[in-house]
């Protein structure tokens, strides 16, 4: 299959290894990858802040560039929700409406793609560690994906998944929320970190790097040893 990979802005800039892992996994499965150079961001920050006109300035080029793509894999639950759920809303009753709907239909968040579209193939991954999984809210509630990432993790050799009590509670990132209301955001993150640490896991895994950015940022400051990893990095692991 020819797959167009959408690597969102902050993943490109700060978490390139997530993208690299996805490329390696999909290529190993025999697919051809294309990465559009001109696309950097999905427009979610502006959209969520209420600036829908500014969001469109980012989203229209995305629609145009991805129009001919066969299938799109996006390396973030939250940006995935933007493409799948919010583009159709953003462009409702405009000339782009049909394009937005078509794009939504062929876009998959990475872990969803592996399970739904590729049928959870054995990736030969091995990751000898105790891990816990954080459900990013957008992946969980906008896209309705809860079991998919867990199915993927269940294939990984020597990996032990310990569910945390607050797996489905928001980590408090929320994009600009984390800067607009930093104390509430931090308090929410503390609940999440405490819940993850309580499991005794060595890693917090998620399919959303933006949540992990927040969680890791807090953990570093608290001097906690538990680390965060994107699910693609775990699935690409051979340790």
């Amino acid at each position: 299959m020819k797959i167009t990979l959408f690597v969102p802005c902050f993943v490109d800039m700060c978490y390139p290894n997530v993208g690299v892992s996805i490329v390696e996994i999909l290529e190993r499965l025999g697919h051809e990858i294309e990465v559009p150079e001109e696309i950097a961001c999905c427009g979610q920050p502006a959209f969520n802040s209420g600036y829908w006109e500014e969001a469109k300035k980012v989203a229209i080029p995305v629609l145009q560039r991805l129009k001919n793509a066969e299938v799109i894999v996006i390396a973030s639950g939250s940006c995935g929700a933007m493409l799948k759920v919010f583009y159709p809303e953003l462009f409702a009753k405009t000339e782009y409406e049909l394009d937005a709907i078509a794009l939504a239909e062929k876009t998959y968040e990475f872990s969803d793609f592996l399970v739904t579209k590729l049928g959870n193939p054995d990736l030969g991954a091995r990751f000898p560690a105790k891990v816990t999984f954080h459900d990013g809210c957008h992946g969980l509630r906008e896209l309705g994906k809860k079991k998919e990432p867990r199915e993927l993790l269940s294939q990984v050799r020597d990996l032990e998944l310990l569910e945390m009590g607050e797996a489905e509670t928001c980590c408090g990132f929320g994009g600009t929320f984390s800067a607009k209301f930093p104390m509430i955001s931090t308090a929410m993150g503390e609940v999440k970190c405490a819940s993850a640490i309580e499991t005794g896991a060595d890693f917090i895994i998620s399919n959303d790097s933006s949540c992990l950015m927040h969680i890791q940022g807090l953990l570093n400051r608290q001097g906690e040893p538990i680390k965060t990893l994107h699910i693609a990095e775990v699935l690409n692991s051979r340790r």
Partner: protein
Amino acid sequence: MNLNVLQFKSDSERLTHNLDHRERIQSALKKYYVARDDKKARFQDWQAARQAAAETKWEAVNHLDKYLVEFADKIEARGAKVHWASTAEQAREIILGIVKEKNARRIIKSKVMTGEEIHLNAALEAAGYDVVESDLGEYIVQLRHEAPYHFVFPAMHLSRGEISDLFEKELGSAKTDSPEELTMIARRVMRDQYLAADIGISGANFAVAETGMISITENEGNARLTCALPKVHIALMGIEKVLPKFEDLALFLPMLGTAGAGQAVTCYNSMYAGPRQPGETDGPEEMHIVLLDNKRTHLLADIEQRDALHCIRCGACLNVCPIYKNVGGHTYGTTYQGPIGSVITPHLRGIQEWKHLSSASTLCGACTEACPVKINLHHHLLHNRRNAIAQKPVWWEQTLFHLSSILFNHPALWRLAAWGGRIGQLFHPLIQGTILDPARAWTKTRDLPPVADQTFKEYWRSRQK
């Protein structure tokens, strides 16, 4: 920044630092989760029940004119008097008018959130009347001169010790740690109040159009006494409370109990259909219904967000809201707290003054998932944000988003930004957390992720060569 925002920011900051408070709310709500899930499981199909409830409310709210008139006609036919109040002021005047006409002195109240909305107690007290809240939680916050903290648990922010101290100070009772004794203390006070009260004021959880009756749901039984013992009963309710049919209660009563407090059904569910009828031995001699608009029709006019009127005030969205769980109910500064409060307050009290509540959310969607009548709460928060900005954009935010759209659309600029980021982060430790740090709001408590030595796009390009 307007005062409401400053208030919200400083209160939320203070409260998030109060670990006792956080712990108390969160551990109370953990018990709620367990109970709720257990009761949900008793529904044959919770999702189907939600769908049915949403459709019923949709019908009711879309034909509010018809159902309200039907309700009013039916209950008036049995001797109640129905009053229509467009504004909070009118509602207060109507109620004060009745109280004056009856030469009443003492008033007892129960379960009236709309009373909070129109500041009824303050108005009655200013006019020289004694007003007592009969529900334990509400009575406690009244003694503290506070607003209720939560729709269903008005005093959940207080510990037993604090309540005992309050009773000791205000009522002269002995210190105690037992919830039963605390309840008994309040009950003893209340008993005299019921007997002395001339007027009972209640709210209404539902109003049934078909039969012309109001339904009140409670756990302590105080509303029953409030509605039945005094000579005059006044029920104050929002116009959106109406349900088409009597049989709708068969769904809504267990649903309210389950979503609200994790009960199969609340302990007391009473229906009132007019004052004492000829030949009856008890009940009030007069019954008044005050139907309150207070900008609800504003919300009704908004097709996109009209379903926010479906709310049955169960409080489930507050219970699951991670923001509420950290900042608590008073921080919102509104009658209706939590997600639903953040959705409707901008409609009811002005979008520019209250838009910050719509921003104070991560849009995690836990509220939408919990809402028994399927209000799309977190998407409405997005709509509020959009509407507020469309009306009055913030120039620097708009400029920032405009500039970032240029950045995102030009790969060369984006590469430059990565390069700038790498340089910038070398110096960042020098200013981190100081006033010079543009990312201070974030870096005060959290580290920023480093910009990678090689971005993903750089990796990809290097591979293509």
